[in-house]
């Protein structure tokens, strides 16, 4: 975070390159530190020396090595990747809708994943988290495609309201459907579903991390590819066209990118709402609205936020856990308010 004491006065001045570079370097360092913490902390704490031993000389008979390698490494990777995905998706979403309150969930992805999961639990008697993941993935994808077609993203290309309304409409419909299934299903279904709904990273393995890694790589590449165009789109339709942006293409790519990233994140962790909304706002504190910088910084902030939430959730009520999605809301909320009060947030 910047020292920021004169942030309000500085807000109108252009951001200097060194400040952004330092900001980026600092965020990467913080993320590395938090990742180490995530490997070491939990219901069974591991000292730093032994932590390094796990990677230098892995001993499958050592319980601590086993805990770190089998549980904490995949979990940390999933948290970082899901955070990166949510951060990029949030920034892209706010750019194309030109709405500072936009978040990836607006495209109906969370609602689609939730409906698919509850159908999986109620109709196919799934109980293992790893089985929900694939249902959630399909649900998120179908909902995203439906919103895309109903909102006619390929055609209007310039009017975000239509897409947002399609997303809101579909989300509410699917949310009600989820509610109706839940109220008419046996109690055990409610029990399974409420735990998925809270948004947790507990018990995710390398297979989930692999899928997520592919999604994040593709999503990040697409997002960076269109980042210049996003800058022009942020100026509005006419200026964007005047600057030579092919609005339709940018829109389609941006939507696909958000769907892929947010869909993969929601599928692997459950709906974690707030992270994608806050991270771009935090990133705007240390960088200009230039999306070539905003996208990576927003991704890093989101990863830090989600990983911290996961660690805190492991520690506060150990040996039980609080889901990362809940902690992200409880930590992110006050932080967001503090930021809103302290600084003048950059408007889009």
């Amino acid at each position, binding site marked *: 975070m910047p020292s920021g004491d004169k942030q309000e006065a500085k807000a109108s001045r252009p951001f200097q390159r060194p400040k952004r570079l330092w900001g980026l370097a600092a965020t990467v360092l913080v993320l590395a530190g938090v990742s180490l913490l995530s490997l070491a902390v939990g219901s069974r704490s591991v000292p730093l020396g032994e932590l390094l031993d796990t990677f230098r000389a892995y001993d499958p008979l050592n319980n601590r090595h086993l805990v770190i390698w089998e549980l904490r490494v995949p979990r940390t990777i999933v948290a970082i990747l899901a955070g990166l995905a949510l951060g990029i998706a949030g920034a892209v979403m706010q750019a194309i809708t030109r*709405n*500072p*309150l936009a978040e990836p969930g607006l495209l109906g992805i969370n609602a689609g994943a939730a409906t698919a999961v509850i159908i999986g639990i109620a109709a196919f008697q799934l109980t293992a988290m790893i089985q929900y993941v694939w249902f959630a993935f399909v649900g998120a994808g179908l909902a995203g495609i439906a919103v895309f077609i*109903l*909102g*006619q993203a390929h055609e209007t290309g310039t*009017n975000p*309201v*239509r897409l*947002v*309304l*399609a997303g*809101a*409409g*579909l*989300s*509410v*419909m*699917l*949310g*009600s*459907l989820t*509610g*109706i299934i*839940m*109220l*008419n299903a046996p*109690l055990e279904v*409610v*029990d399974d579903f*409420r*735990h998925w*709904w*809270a948004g947790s990273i507990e018990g995710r393995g390398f297979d989930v991390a692999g899928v997520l890694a592919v999604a994040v790589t593709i999503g990040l590449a697409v997002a960076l590819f269109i980042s210049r165009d996003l800058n022009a789109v942020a100026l509005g339709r006419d200026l964007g066209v005047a600057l030579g942006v092919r609005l339709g293409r940018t829109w389609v790519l941006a939507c696909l990118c958000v769907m892929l990233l947010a869909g993969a994140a929601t599928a692997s962790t459950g709906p974690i*709402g*707030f992270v994608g*909304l806050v991270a771009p706002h935090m990133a705007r504190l240390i960088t200009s609205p230039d999306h070539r910088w905003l996208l990576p910084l927003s991704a890093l902030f989101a990863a830090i936020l989600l990983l911290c939430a996961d660690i805190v959730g492991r520690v506060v009520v150990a040996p039980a856990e*609080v*889901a990362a*999605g*809940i*902690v*992200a*809301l*409880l930590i*992110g*909320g*006050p932080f*967001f*308010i503090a930021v*809103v*009060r302290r600084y003048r*947030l950059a*408007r889009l």
Partner: protein
Amino acid sequence: MRLRPRAVAVCVALALTGLALGILLLGTGTFRLTPAEVFNSLFGAGSNPTAERIILRVRLPRLATAALVGASLGMAGAIFQSLSRNPLGSPDIIGFTTGAATGAILQIVLFDAGPLGVSLAAFASCVATTVAVLLLSMKNGATGGYRLVLVGVGIGAILSGINTLLLVKGGLDQAAAAQIWLAGSLNTRTWAHVIPAAIGFAAIVPVVVLNARQTTLLEMGDDIASQLGVVPERTRLTMVMAAVGLTAIATAAAGPIAFVALAGPQLARRLTSSPDLPLVSGALMGAVLLLLADLVSQRPPFQVNMPVGLTTGMLGGFYLLWLLTRKRTI
């Protein structure tokens, strides 16, 4: 405020639709009555004591609750959308409904309270949330519309974290009971629900109508509005308090009903195509939406349980999507 012919026509049409739905709701159900019998029972001229009891004690309170809740939500949504200058600005998004839910879930999960306690807790925590949002967004004695919305989003996030935590860590039976409250319902409403809601609604509406013109001017920005003689802070505070009061009344009476606050004013604005705040038309549209949803929830397909809050979601969402597929420009 100038009366626009088209807006007036839309309002009259909506009122008539609401009336027709009301008669349908009073007359049908497991015990069928003709419209004539309904009128006779309503005005005390009926010869059928059973019909009279069903109408006056069961169906009329339910109908009145639905109409009041729908109208309150529609009006509150119109105010929030204007103040936040955002078509997505509704009490649901700014965190007030979440606040009401926190109170209710606390009561259900921790204290196992009855319906009256839950309603009171919902009302109290909705008001407390508002006060917290207003105080936290104060800076140099001014809230500023944009900061108000963002602080609301932050508070809403914290509260929804608490809600989820309570639902996950609470007992399974209480969690299921809380889910039912969260779905929003009009079942077993009595005059004890209607009368407080009606008094509150009647008290708030004049305040809203008196400030409507200033609020419309506020949409042009604080600077221009104050040059036109509006006091931005005072107008905004008054309108936020009024809208929160309306939301609290609705939530206490029927639980958090989804979507009416968001869709009511949007639909009304599109029908009237008037630049004024869609207060009356939004309220009427909200009432009609909720009555329609109640009609559907009382006759669900496949014998499933369908609380009215979920029906509003289904109907509203479907209508919005249908609108999107039909219209070229939105």
